[in-house]
């Protein structure tokens, strides 16, 4: 179908972006003062040992030569070695993708559920107290750092009522619905206000739209108009906003991963950057970029599915 032609176009557009990202990351991180080998061997190591290891990782070469080898190896599926962990980058990342992905998706699922409930409730009772409460809560909660949300949830749910574990990620899918509930809730608490504000406003705007009036003139009930017309017409802006939010969450979950002690990508990236673990940062950046690209892609597909007018 014509409208889905962008499905083919996207990968082509992706190439310059990926090259740009990888080159910039590579140069940036390598130009940043600080030596991963020093960090790996620790402050007590001799200069000899440091030089030896640097040579082993090829870090004594000029940057562009290193980049060239990086690309060459990456094309063969080898992203190099984590200097700090002394293991293949692929493994370091693979171990961590799953928890982060689970966490983000779970958090989003909760956010979506909350957002739909709150925005619908607020819009349907527009101007009345419920609406005002929802609005005020959404406005006021923007400034609460998620670190505190997490900590408070732990103090309440884990220590006082002992309902949930403080930490933990288990390889079992269903266990994690329980284990990762609080971290997902923390994400939801920080994301929901933003989405709800947006969706509520769109709902209200769309409830006043001409086609809604036309629906009323046909004798359709408010509930029907809302669920069949207004609702679907309002989703697009929020879906797009959600795309932005997801891009932000990818790689931005470090605080939540720390508070709930989840071994995820966010932690690893920060750590990689702080220790100048070049190849980890490099590969992780690409993985995250890829995640963001996929997110945008999904948003595009949803957009096209939701709105027959859109052509990308």
């Amino acid at each position, binding site marked *: 179908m014509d409208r889905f032609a962008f499905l083919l176009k996207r990968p082509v557009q992706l190439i310059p972006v990926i090259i740009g990202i990888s080159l910039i990351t590579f140069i940036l991180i390598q130009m940043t*003062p*600080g*030596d991963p080998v*020093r*960090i*790996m*061997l*620790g*402050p*007590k*190591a*001799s*200069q*000899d*040992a440091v030089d*030896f*290891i640097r040579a*082993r990782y090829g870090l004594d070469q000029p940057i562009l030569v290193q980049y060239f080898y990086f690309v060459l190896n990456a094309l063969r599926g080898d992203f190099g070695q984590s200097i*700090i*962990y*002394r*293991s293949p980058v692929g493994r*370091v990342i693979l*171990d*961590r993708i799953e928890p982060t992905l689970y966490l983000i998706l779970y958090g989003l699922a909760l956010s979506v559920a909350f957002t739909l409930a709150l925005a619908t409730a607020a819009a349907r009772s527009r101007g009345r107290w419920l609406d005002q409460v929802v609005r005020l809560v959404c406005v006021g909660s923007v400034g609460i750092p998620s670190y505190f949300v997490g*900590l408070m949830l*732990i*103090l309440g749910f*884990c*220590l006082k009522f*002992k309902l949930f*574990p*403080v*930490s*933990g990620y288990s390889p079992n899918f269903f266990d994690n619905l329980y284990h990762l509930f609080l971290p997902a809730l923390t994400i939801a608490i920080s994301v929901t206000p933003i989405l709800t504000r947006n969706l509520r406003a769109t709902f209200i705007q769309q409830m006043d739209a001409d086609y809604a009036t036309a629906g009323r003139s046909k004798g359709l009930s408010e509930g029907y108009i809302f669920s069949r017309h207004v609702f679907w017409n309002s989703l697009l802006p929020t879906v797009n906003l959600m795309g932005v939010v997801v891009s932000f969450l990818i790689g931005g979950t470090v605080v939540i991963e*720390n*508070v*709930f*002690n989840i*071994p995820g990508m966010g*932690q*690893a990236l920060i*750590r990689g950057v*702080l*220790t*100048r673990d070049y190849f980890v940062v490099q590969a992780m950046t690409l993985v995250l970029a890829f995640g963001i690209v996929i997110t945008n892609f999904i948003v595009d597909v949803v957009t096209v599915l939701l709105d027959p007018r859109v052509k990308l």
Partner: protein
Amino acid sequence: ADAKILRMGYGSDVLTLDPIKTVYGSDIMIQGLMFARLLQANADRSEVGPGLAEKWDISDDGLVYTFYLRDAKFADGSPITAEDVAFSYTRMRFQKDSAYAAPFQPLKEAKAKDAKTVVMTLDRKFTPFLTLTEIWNTGIVPKAAVEKMGDDAFAKAPVTSGPFKFVDWKPGDRVVLAKNEHYYRQGLPHLDGIEFRYVPDDNTRISMLQAGELDVNIGVPIARLAELKAAGFRADPETSSVTYELLINHSKAPFDNLKFRQAVSHGIDRKAICDTVTLGTGTPANSIFSPALNYFDKSLPVIQRDVAKAKALLAESGVSDASFELMVAAGTSDDEKTAVLIQAQLAEVGITANVAKVDPTSVWTRLIDGDYQSQINWWYNETRDPDNALRWCAWGAGDNKSYYTRYNNDEVNKLIEEGAGEVEGDKRGAIYAKIQQITVDEVAQVALYYPAWLNAYSPKVKDLILNIGLQFSEIDQTDLV
């Protein structure tokens, strides 16, 4: 009964399981759980006793050490032979990427004389050698396994010789260990296994301890110690060998000026800093090294703050621009507090300290490159013998230039060598007292206070402490009830 698994949480990540490739706290603690050493320190580390070596001889000239091994096995069931010991020491001392070969410079050679006898030859008289044979990087590794697996693979799944054997390692998450059935001390350990978990957030670690998800919380923020104690956790300060200090760069103005250094030293209220930052769990510093070390000179007075004197010294120094940058590694709240206190105290003397938070890796780069004026830092010593400590912090001839301070005093350097070669306790004491006096007079570094290790243990954990060398040396006798 349930398997007795001890769950420990620590704020730094395990980076490698190979004893010779690390100097980090997390790795060091793990090594103690996994590898047995020739000798074994007692709980407070005041003495070394038999470990894998049942007994040992020292030649009269003090250059040849002979160790006699007991019957022992690696976790895979293969016997621990003299060959393995020689291999482990040679590797640690001579392999290029050994992270901490420095203290073993005098070791010339380690050789298996027969299956149970190892002979080590030194190139000079070196009294601290015996105590060094119990630190983490002398853990005995199986030659066959290392050679077969290669260093990298071994570092990820080592074959151990200590109380626990390796089961699993998820980098950035946890190391899982299980009881080593072949451990040389019969009937030990009591535990069935250990989970050593990486929990970076201080508050989360405490919450996990409180929720029963951890049994040991290594590194408790001082602010929460009392609370944990009140809640029934064992949370007493434990003796450490740490010195907190203001690192100063002797090769840069204004710290190249002795009077200025003294002005700073006298302008600082060590007790106030110690009390405020450690909430009474530490002691103000009087010497360059910690009271946990042998030959620590108790008689040296803690320098009392004397603003008038500091001002006079500052005037004498002739330093016109009495200001400097005070670097703090970002994200370390105790360091930051210390820095702010120093800043406030020196302000009254007329010295301006500009606090700058810097990301930790950059801090190290700048220290090593000598591109700094001052920094809040701390260090610990693995053994009670001060030789190692002094070579780290005051030996200008060393690789690290007196802990990157560029302090280099020929007399001190000479005294350090002398102390290492001296066998007799009293004489060593005199040498070390002299060194401590000189370094305080010359303000080699501004030692501030000596903090304790602050850990919290669930009441179920019996008989476990962290010793000054960052080892849970009693781990094989620890039990969960």
